[in-house]
């Protein structure tokens, strides 16, 4: 599973990345976090607002800092294996 944080490096993007890390810790789901900072790459996701979060290439939220709990829900919904 792959989590992508889309954002050109603003404070909110970093906050979102931190939340994603926390969500992984809390749920015990294993996933790789990748920060996509190149604007051309970000545009390929067709988002209008950053920060945005995509799981396995699918954008789930854009323009807000999603809470770790909500990211956890995204992860479970995307079929992440919970190891305790």
């Amino acid at each position: 599973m792959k989590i992508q944080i889309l954002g050109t490096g603003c404070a909110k993007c970093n906050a979102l990345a931190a939340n994603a890390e926390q969500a992984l810790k809390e749920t015990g789901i294993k996933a790789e976090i990748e920060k996509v900072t190149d604007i051309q790459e970000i545009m390929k996701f067709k988002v209008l607002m950053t920060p945005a979060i995509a799981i396995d290439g699918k954008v789930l939220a854009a323009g807000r800092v999603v809470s770790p709990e909500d990211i956890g829900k995204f992860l479970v919904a995307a079929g992440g294996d919970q190891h305790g």
Partner: protein
Amino acid sequence: MKNDDNAKPGKSALRFSTHSGFPRNIITLILMGVAWYVVYSRIDKIGALIAVRLLHLSPVSQTGEGAVYFFNTAGEVLWLLILVIYVMGIIRSFFQPEKVRHMLGDRRHPVDYLLAGLLGVVTPFCSCSAVPIFLGFVTSGVPLGMTFSFLIASPMVNEIAVSLLFVLFGVKIAFTYVASGLAIAFLVGFLMDRFRMERYLEPWVKEFEKSAVDIAVPKMDFQSRMAKGADAVKEILGKIWPYALIGIGIAAVIHMLVPSGFFSTGFSGCPECSGNHAAHGTFASTLPRIFGKRSWESVPLAVLIGAPMYSNPAGMLPILQALIEKGAPIGTSLAFIMAVSGVSLPEMVLLRKALRPILILVFLCSLIVGITAVGYLMNALF
């Protein structure tokens, strides 16, 4: 609704209120508005209350006067900001960038550039989203210039600056500021399309697949819009209050210490040194030069200094007001504030990925020329 009631069997008394949610919210809003106004109409007593009653400063002493000014201005500014940010938060919950893009998609009439500017003011996005929005608009068929109108108006005409202008300078100046900000956004955008500047987009933007995936925007009831307003107050006011207080504090000191007419009279009118102004050092000799009314170059100079600066208008405006009261010309000062808030160099750097350098240059220059023109105009008017 049914499910909701079942989920909370013990709260059946609330069923009435959930069904008639809208009028109840309206009543809440009206009550809050009245309470807000009652406080606002008395807020100019707060300075005397804190400075004289609580801190036991003499109201006629210099320190006392400064303190009264500080608490009065801070109280009025913060209290007004609560209302304005709250209302803007509710308004903005109606305008998502996806929706706006759809609205602007097939518009080409000159008036639509003004609409784009207005939409820029009410659409919520932080500066870090400016470039994705820009590209998202352009690649989905919104004309380049119209996208610029949207993008220029958004930071320049912001509710924080306008509220502070209203408190510190009055409704006439605040209105002129909004009108000129929109005028710049309109003109720059319109002219860019007139001169077909889209030629200077980077090729990859033009070849970009013209389909747009819209993230589902959740439907909101009025209650959650009100919550959005409250969130905005918490987030924005939580961020800017220190700037506002520091700015007003510096302004209070200027009020107390700088001789009045300092900027308008420039060198000759200084009461302290009878002509030997070297004694004041660089601060005193530079400021009148930039903000002094007589020198024609003061407006463009203020704009050029303001453009690369990034600062919070909440901190800047009180200081400028104090300078203006000491004789600095208002147009120069407002042009400065416009340049600070409306021109963002980091944004230009990011836009460079999508725009050829000449287009960046055109964008930057037209902003600077527009803001300078507004500065001259306001110097002449007020």
